């Protein structure tokens, strides 16, 4: 019996009960062990980069917020600060602080959401319900500040749209106390509950070197001792005036990623408190021109899941020439195959969930340059046929060598 006959290939997805979004995983098993995993994404590709090119900058803001419903604020911040840099406008210090407060509240809600989803994947539904109940408190704060529970729409080109009043400030402080108290319980649970530690330790390994090699970002990288955080390495908005402590962990596995996230919730809470107390006075938004000069800009923010980058090219009109979004999940997918290999099939859901995957963030279009065949962006039928014939020739199937018996008519 050859090796291949012992292997089973299981397709999972795109509709599957584990995650809420469509993604297809082709997992090859040898017994219970994963020997190969292929990640298939692209079901959520909506073509929004192209849509941005046909709309004005202020309309694009609306689309960019809907790249992802979970980290919408970080996308709009990256886009806004990119366009502001192109125009050369400096926004007011108060607007910068409000952006930071929103971003950190978003991190709170995203990490609590992840904690629930991860707990659900390992069959710990009580924690799922607990953390989502506490997440509602954070959503209440976001709804109060932005006016909407999910896509807050607080950013505008040149500043922010809504102010934080003293009453709001007081209410946020009060609510944060409750969230902090609850989170202390989760930290205790994550660090000291032996069942949870035994379930999460040692699976989805990504060593320090591999994390750098595969270009992991955010909590996934920080759980492998990569001290990478855009808030520190390239402070944007008001992060240069707020003390940011980067949480890292040396477990290099799913357990480490959980620890990093629950500890980051605490850091976010103290950052929001600091920002609320030290918020300067000033205007909310400055006047912003309709037309943006020609030029290109690369803007980076730290999303809850890691580094989020936007590339914007202006051409002197009110519409951008090109917008490119690379969200954090896209960077983390590259290490996924490595993380899954060698683990058991039963660990697949939690390993996938541990990077906090977001398909709507990921699904942009790519053109992969094939260096062996020159830079062919569009293949016509003839070249595709030639490629297919050559590909099979290398594997010993040459149709031109097939000799047919002569036939007499």
């Amino acid at each position, binding site marked *: 019996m050859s090796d291949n006959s012992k292997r089973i290939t299981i397709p999972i997805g795109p509709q599957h009960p584990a995650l809420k979004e469509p993604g297809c995983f082709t997992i090859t098993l040898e017994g219970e062990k994963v020997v190969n995993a292929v990640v298939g994404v692209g079901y959520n590709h909506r073509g929004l980069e192209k849509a941005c090119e046909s709309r004005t900058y202020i309309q694009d803001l609306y689309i960019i917020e809907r790249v992802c419903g979970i980290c919408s604020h970080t996308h709009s911040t990256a886009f806004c600060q990119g366009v502001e840099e192109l125009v050369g406008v400096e926004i007011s210090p108060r607007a910068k602080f409000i952006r930071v407060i929103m971003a950190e509240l978003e991190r709170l809600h995203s990490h609590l959401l992840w904690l629930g989803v991860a707990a659900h994947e390992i069959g710990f539904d009580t924690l799922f319900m607990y953390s989502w109940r506490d997440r509602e408190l954070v959503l209440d704060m976001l709804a109060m500040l932005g006016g*909407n529970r999910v896509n807050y729409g607080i950013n505008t080109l040149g500043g922010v749209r809504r102010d934080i009043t003293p009453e709001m400030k007081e209410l946020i402080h009060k609510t944060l106390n409750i969230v902090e108290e609850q989170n202390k319980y989760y930290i205790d649970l994550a660090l000291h509950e032996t069942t949870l530690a035994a379930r999460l330790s040692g699976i989805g390994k990504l060593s320090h070197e591999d994390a750098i090699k595969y270009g992991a970002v955010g909590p996934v990288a920080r759980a492998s001792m990569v001290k990478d955080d855009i808030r520190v390495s390239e402070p944007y908005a008001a992060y240069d005036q707020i003390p940011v402590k980067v949480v890292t962990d040396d477990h290099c596995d799913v357990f480490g990623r959980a620890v990093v996230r629950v500890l980051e919730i605490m850091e976010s809470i103290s950052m929001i408190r600091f920002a609320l107390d030290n918020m300067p006075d000033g205007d909310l938004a400055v006047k912003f021109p309709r037309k943006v000069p020609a030029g290109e800009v690369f803007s980076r923010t730290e999303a809850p899941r890691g580094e989020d980058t936007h590339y914007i090219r202006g051409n002197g009109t009110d519409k951008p020439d090109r917008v490119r979004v690379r969200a954090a999940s896209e960077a983390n997918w590259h290490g996924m195959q490595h993380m899954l290999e060698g683990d058991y099939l039963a660990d697949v859901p939690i390993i996938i969930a541990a990077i906090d995957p977001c398909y709507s963030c990921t699904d942009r279009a790519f053109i992969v340059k094939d260096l062996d065949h020159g830079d062919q962006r569009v293949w016509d039928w003839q070249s595709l046929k030639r490629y297919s014939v050559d590909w099979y020739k290398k594997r010993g199937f040459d149709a031109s060598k097939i000799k047919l018996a002569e036939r007499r008519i």
Partner: protein
Amino acid sequence: MSKNFFEKAVDWGRRKSPWIIHFNAGACNGCDIEVVDALTPRFDVERLGLLQQGTPRHADVLVCTGAVTLQTRDRLKQIYEQMPEPKFVLAVGSCACTGGIFDGCYCVSGGIDSVIPVDAYIPGCAARPEAIIDAVVKLLTALEQSQKAAD
């Protein structure tokens, strides 16, 4: 002809315990987390008998979010066809209702109703959990009325 005891019991079960399946046809995640939110303690839509299922073969209600992308279009059709009769479809969010801001994109075929028939539309970006619960109640009320009319 009026229904016998067994048929009445099936009707009652259908009304009191509709099982749902959630499918993301290309949403931004916003409506999806609100659908899950509706299942968690603050909104707790399970008190209406709703239970989330993993497979379409066990489900009565298909809860769909997002504008339908070309990649998911065939999958959505397959999932709809796999569901047993009678089946209902909820379109959650502006994108699911009409295609929303993604309508007209090269990779989007439109709202959910461009692929499968929809029974209830829930507008909103994102649709709030309260709106989702409201739609579920309206759907169940309509089901009860149609059952009574058939009886």
